[in-house]
């Protein structure tokens, strides 16, 4: 019988299994011992593994990340739980200039896992920066963005066995999402996109929270005779361009859906990669669906105005199939 867990619980289970198997793994973060983190993502692990391996830290993002980098190169496998990804701003040098550079500059690998909550939800502009592309762009970092509980568990287990830094990004809006998860030996490797739904008329590329919206759109499209292939990137670095390109060569049409602002980022990279490797197969320009180029508002009324939604995705796919 498969186990059903929430997205947050799947993380906890994956981490707990790996911690039990490897005593070098430990966790640092604000308010994780009792609360288990803002999304209860490590709830109970404080009790299970004790105060040495599950540590509350001061609100010192630079120092907690430095503690991660330094301990990672001296035999440990730290998890730094940043809480919101926005707080990476306080330790950006540790992530980008230290952790990301040591392997190249020094030949010293840094098995540091940084967990953070990303994506757009309530809370206002300062807690909803969509910056995962920054880390994917910066050489030296892996970036993982699971869209469901099974992927969370399979990917966190793989991530905790990587020897290079990994940013493990969990979307705010998914924390309560329930689903089956794999067993202790079910690992999902980084760098392999998932074809969440097969189809031959149009390729929809996305990750994280938008996977469900794209699948919803795909169902409605199917009811109208349009078969969309939905690709969940799973990891932004390594980026599985092959799966994307292969799909587009088959469908000839592509849509990229992303919460980021309408400039650059992962979606632009996908568009650029598609047209580089599948130009002759394209029947029409690749379509991007993103948020506008503006900070994120707090009011739910405004949030719903800026976020990609399944109706918009459906309409874009329909139009794409009609014109080309």
């Amino acid at each position, binding site marked *: 019988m498969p186990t059903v867990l929430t997205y947050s619980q799947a993380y906890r289970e994956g981490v707990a299994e790996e911690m039990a198997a490897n005593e070098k793994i430990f966790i640092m973060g604000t308010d994780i011992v009792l609360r288990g983190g803002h999304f209860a993502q490590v709830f109970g692990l404080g009790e299970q593994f004790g105060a040495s391996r599950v540590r509350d830290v001061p609100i010192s993002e630079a120092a907690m990340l430095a503690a991660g980098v330094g301990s990672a190169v001296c035999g440990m496998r730290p998890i730094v739980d940043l809480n919101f990804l926005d*707080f990476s701003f306080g330790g950006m040098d540790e992530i980008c200039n230290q952790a990301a550079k040591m392997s190249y500059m020094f030949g010293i690998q840094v098995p540091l896992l940084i967990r953070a909550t990303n994506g757009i939800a309530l809370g206002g502009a300062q807690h909803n920066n969509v910056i995962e592309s920054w880390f994917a762009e910066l050489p030296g970092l892996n970036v993982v963005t699971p869209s469901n509980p099974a992927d969370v568990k399979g990917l966190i287990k793989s991530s905790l066995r990587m020897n290079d830094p990994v940013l493990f990004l969990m979307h705010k809006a998914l924390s309560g999402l329930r689903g089956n998860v794999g067993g202790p030996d079910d690992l999902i490797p980084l760098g392999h996109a998932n074809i969440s739904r097969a189809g031959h008329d149009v390729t929809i590329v996305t990750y994280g929270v938008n996977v469900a919206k794209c699948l919803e759109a795909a169902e409605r499209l199917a009811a109208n005779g349009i078969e969309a292939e939905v690709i969940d990137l799973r990891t932004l670095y390594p980026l599985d361009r092959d799966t994307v390109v292969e799909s587009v060569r088959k469908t000839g049409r592509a849509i990229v859906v992303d919460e980021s602002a309408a400039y650059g980022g992962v979606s632009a990279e996908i568009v650029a990669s598609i047209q580089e490797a599948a130009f002759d197969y394209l029947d029409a320009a690749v379509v991007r669906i993103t948020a506008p180029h503006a900070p994120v508002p707090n*009011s739910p009324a405004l949030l719903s105005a800026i976020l990609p939604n399944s109706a918009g995705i459906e309409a874009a796919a329909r139009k794409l199939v009609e014109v080309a």
Partner: protein
Amino acid sequence: MSTSDLAEESSVAAAPAMAPPPEVLREWLGAMLTIRRFETECVRLSFAGKIPGGIHSSEGQEGVAIGSIRALTRDDVVSGTHRSHHHALAKGLSLRIVMAELFGRDDGLSGGRGGSMHLVDRSLNFLGSNGIVGAGLGIAMGASLAMQMQAQPFVAVGYFGDGGANNGRVWESINMAAIWKLPLIAICENNLYAVETHISNSMAGDSIAGRAAGFGLPTVTVDGQDVIAVYQATRAARERAIAGGGPTFIEAQTYRYEGHNVGDVQNYREKDEVAQWRAERDPIARLRQRMIDDAMLDDAQYAGLETAAEEAVADAIAYADASPWPTGADALTTYPTNV
């Protein structure tokens, strides 16, 4: 603006430092009661789904906000934290318009763009609450630099918490204010906890004020539950700053009665601890008692203040509830707009 807003009293700053007159103290008491009512209602409204995303309640810390901000003038700048309803209301922001912002409505301070951690009123020199620990102090420091460069007789007040005192940027700002002798008042609201983490687990050294002293600026520790003490400390700091004496660091020892945020389970502290702070050190109860003892207040007057607070908050809620939702158009503008 509703007439029941906690108007910032610029006349107060000119009053004698040591003994605020009865009518001033009554205003403070009413203001603290209003903040408390506002916060308890906000918790209720968060649970009720009226305030999307919830709030960080300042209940218990009213004395710090009123004590410090009543020592300021309208021109003085205040910059807050994630827990800043008390600062905002003390600075005179409209109850109605703040509540509408918390509701995410069109009549809110920022038409719903901001929310609880992003309250602002430029005309009242409240430069914003702030979602990022330590950030508000930096903005106040920068504001004080502008005041110094423009030779304005104003000060800037930046708040942060005991948790914020472990964030490096806080000390960078303190150092910069000290070397440039900026008219900054840095107020650390030490409520002992950062979320679930007690200060004893996150902070080395004897005290936050002791740490600050190493940065070369006058440092005072004050009972944050004694609104008059906070007022006097801030008043003195303001006078020194205006006279060119530079910044002051104030550690205000206070306590939050509610959880960190709405829904916080609070398994990190004993119920007794909260009850004790409420019973023994409550800033409202203490001012009330003091005024009764000094024959500055009678029970009827106090009841009147309570009723006024309740009515003002009820009025704000009604206003917010009647306010329309914002339309998306505004959120769809690109930024910067470059106009």
